[in-house]
């Protein structure tokens, strides 16, 4: 890639080295893999959310997070855990249009995802000590990127959505007769929601709000404790960011397969 480095590593006075980087390892693999995975995930999510199909397994109460909450009369009976304040739903518009944008924005402004896509989509920088191709850089000081500071609002929203998802999981523990039951789907939904909580509560904004903003932990022992837990989750934020992408797809795909009758749910109890 021909890059003009004159304002950067080739600036006057710096050691004259024509190469953009002297790294000999395959530094480009990581941004490439990230780029492919994110793109694939977005495509999958977009298609599935707008399909308005195979999102609910009525027999066992499995509702995919991609369609939750389902709030219109177009939703399958039983999937509307929060009633139907809306009437007929237009095609292609995701049922969860009230929540999905917030979740997307929560992840879009997440400190980990920012790192990942700044590197893999913007190449700013593509990898450490590899010159970026841009001539100008203003970081997150101007519109639109200054909006990244709104992350905490999307965190508040994500907490509400996670509560909704948790409520959905309670509905997923039912048998064909309407009584209590457990199937593989229930467990997948449960695992997914646990992971979502790990991701959501490990958020850097949450870490600040719960206690990080204090200068005297010793005067707030409970918040210090909470901060300690959140910090533990936060240290694995990247891991949960990726794992939840996977778990969302697994959950949705499993429900789609069962709902479409391609496979049948593996029942454990009732």
């Amino acid at each position: 890639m021909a890059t003009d480095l004159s304002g950067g590593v080739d600036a006057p006075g710096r050691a004259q080295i024509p190469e953009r980087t002297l790294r000999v390892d395959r530094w480009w693999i990581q941004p490439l893999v990230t780029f492919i995975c994110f793109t694939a995930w977005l495509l999958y999510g977009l298609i599935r959310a707008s399909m308005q199909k195979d999102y609910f397994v009525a027999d066992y109460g499995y509702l995919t997070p991609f369609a939750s909450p389902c709030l219109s009369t177009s939703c399958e009976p039983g999937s509307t855990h929060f009633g139907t304040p809306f009437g007929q739903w237009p095609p292609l518009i995701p049922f969860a249009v009230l929540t999905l944008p917030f979740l997307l924005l929560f992840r879009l402004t997440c400190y980990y995802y920012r790192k990942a896509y700044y590197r893999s989509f913007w190449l700013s920088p593509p990898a450490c000590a590899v010159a970026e191709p841009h001539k100008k850089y203003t970081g997150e000081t101007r519109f639109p990127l200054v909006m990244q500071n709104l992350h905490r609002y999307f965190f508040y929203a994500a907490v509400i959505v996670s509560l909704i998802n948790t409520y959905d999981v309670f509905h997923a523990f039912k048998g064909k007769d309407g009584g209590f039951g457990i199937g593989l789907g229930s467990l997948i939904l449960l695992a997914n929601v646990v992971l979502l909580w790990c991701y959501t509560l490990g958020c850097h904004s949450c870490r600040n709000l719960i206690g990080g903003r204090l200068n005297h932990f010793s005067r707030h022992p409970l918040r210090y404790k909470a901060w300690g837990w959140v910090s533990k989750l936060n240290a694995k934020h990247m891991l949960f960011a990726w794992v939840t992408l996977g778990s969302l797809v697994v959950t949705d795909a499993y429900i789609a397969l069962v709902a479409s009758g391609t496979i049948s749910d593996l029942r454990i109890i009732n």
Partner: protein
Amino acid sequence: MSYQGSFRVWRGDDQSGGLVDYRVEVNEGEVVLDIIHRLQATQAPDLAVRWNCKAGKCGSCSAEINGKPRLLCMTRMSTFTEDETITVTPLRTFPVEKDLVTDVSFNYEKSREIPAFAPPEGVAPGDYRMSQWDVERSQEFRKCIECFLCQDVCHVVRDHEDNKQHFAGPRFLMRITELDMHPLDAADRREAARTEHGIGWCNITKCCTEVCPEHIKITDNALIPLKERVADRYYDPIVWLGNKIRRRST
């Protein structure tokens, strides 16, 4: 066990320079700095390199090894294969003085611009009381040995010379966080962090953390918390409202 290793070392000054090939003896248990010293003693007596403690504590021997910012004294030769050619260059973000030595005065200038610790009024020396819980976060940042590898790798200044004027760099933004979290510091540092020192320029791509030889979690523990503290002050009406109400009720 020793072998002849292949090295490419950048030789030159601020006018010109390039990579020079050397063959030099490498012994078991050595680090890259040992090899540079052997080059000095045997083949290139005027090869310029900065170093002091040779134990990873002073942060003097910063350079780039195979393109990665590293301390010469903490890079063991055993991490390379015997037939590998090892490239050693000066830091590429700062003006070069000679060979592996760069002019790091940028960092000292930035360091002077960060307002110093503001002691609490009316607390006499000897009367400072701080709990271990409260000092631990800032203590992590005070592990910094000022090797300036984070300043070197940060693309904000590495790739954009013109950003040097309004961006303090990870090391000194971390210093602001350290002081802001200090349980007895009397100053509010958020305004200056946002305006003069440019926390907004950081796009948290974490290279500073990757290269830190002290394994300080610069991004997660210092820069992001600083961004959040700035957001508390400038971008969060809920916190603002909460403060308002609490102030009224007390």
